[in-house]
C-alpha cells in the first residue's frame, strides 16, 4: 500500500460514497468513474489542505495530481517532504 493510501481511500469512501468502500484501482480516474466532479475536486483540495497542512497552488490543480488515488498519494508525498 502506498503512503497515505488508506486515508485517501477512507476520505473518498466517506465523503463521496456514503461509507461504501470501493475497490477502485489506484490508477483509475476519479472523474471518469463519476466519483468526483468540479465541486468534488474543491472538497478534495479542502481535505488535503486541512488534513495534511499543505497549500495546493493553482498550477498544481491538474488531473496528474488529483485524479487518481496513486496520483494523490504521490502528490501528497512530494508536498509533505
Amino acid at each position, binding site marked *: 500500500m502506498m503512503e497515505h493510501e488508506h486515508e485517501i481511500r477512507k476520505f473518498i469512501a466517506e465523503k463521496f460514497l456514503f461509507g461504501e468502500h470501493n475497490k477502485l484501482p489506484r490508477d483509475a480516474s476519479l472523474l471518469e468513474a463519476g466519483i468526483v466532479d*468540479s465541486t468534488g*475536486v*474543491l472538497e478534495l483540495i*479542502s481535505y488535503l489542505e486541512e488534513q495534511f497542512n499543505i497549500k495546493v497552488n493553482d498550477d498544481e490543480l*491538474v*488531473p*496528474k495530481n*488529483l485524479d487518481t488515488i496513486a496520483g494523490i498519494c504521490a502528490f501528497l508525498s512530494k508536498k509533505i517532504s
Partner: protein
Amino acid sequence: MNAKSPIPPDLLEIDCDKELAKISGAIKNTLGRVLHKRGLVVGISGGIDSSVTAALCVKAVGKDKVIGLQMPERHSAEDTLGLSALIADHLGIRKVPIDITPILEAIGYYEKYDEAVRAAVPGYGRDWKSKIVVSDISEDRAYTLFSVVAASPDGRMVKERLELSSYLAIVAATNFKQRIRKMLEYYYADLYNYAVAGTPNRLEFDQGFFVKLGDGAADIKPIAHLYKTQVYKLARYMGLPEAIINRFPTTDTYSLPQGQDEFFFSVSSEVMDLCLYGKNHGLSVEDVSLHVHLPPGRVSAIYQDIDRKRTATRYLHLAPVLITEVPEIAQDLMMKKDLG
C-alpha cells in the same frame, strides 16, 4: 496552404419561417391541450433569449395574452430595465417592473454574498464590485475552477481562487436571484391562470447553466432545442430591436460586467455552439478544430468538458426521484392522455 474544414460554414442554418411556425404551433397546442392555461408569463431581461422567447409567445397566442416581467436588482446592468422595456413595447405586451432588491435585502442576500467574497478578498464590502469567473478549458486542466474578481472603490482589481466554502456560499446566495424571479413569475401565472415560459437556449439547457427551481423552472421552454446562433437568427428574422440583438451576452448576475463565457462556458457561445453541434453529430475533433480556428487539443478538451458538465448537472434536470414508481402519475402517460 492552410487545411480547410470539410464542415460547411452554414452548419447552424435554420429555415426561420418553418421554425417559427413549428414553435408557435407547439406553444399554442401545449397551452390549450396539455397545460390548460390562458396565456404566458415571461421574465424579460433585455437579453436575446428572453426577448426571442417573448416574441415566440406573442406569435403563438397574441400580445394580449403575454405578460413580461422586468425584475432588475441592485447589481443588474444599467441597460437591463431599458432594454427589457424596449422589447416589451416592441412586442406590445404588458410589462410589469418589479425591483427585487428589497426582497433580496430582506432575505439577507447582499450580506451573505459580501461575507462569502470577503473570505477570499479581505476588506471586500458594499462599495466594491465583483464577479465570478471560471478557469480556461485547456488540455491539461480538466477541472472547472472558480475565482472571484473584485474591484475596490479606488479601482484596484483583485483575483482570488475560491475555496470550497466560499464557492458554495456564493452560489447558494446568488441562486436567490433566479429563485425570487421565478417565484414572481409564478405569482403572475397563478393570478391570471397563465403558464410560465422558460428562456434557456440549447447550450444552457444541455450544459446545465441554470438554477434548479430558479430559471430552470418553467411550464414550457420554447427555445431549449436551439443553439444560441440559431436564437440570433430567429431574432433577426423576427425583426427584434438591434439594441437587443447587439447586446453583449451577459449573466446580469454580478456587480461587475460578466459574460457567460467567463462564468460557465470558458469560450464564446459561437465556438461552444459549434463544438456542441460537432459532438452531438459525431464530427471529428480535427474537422471542428479547423472550423472554429482552435487547436485540436483545445477542441478535444471542450468535448470532454461537455460530457463532464452533463454528468455534473444531470441532477438539475431530474424531477424528484421516487423510490417506487407511481404509474398512474407517470409524466409520459399524462402527456399521451392530454394529446390524445
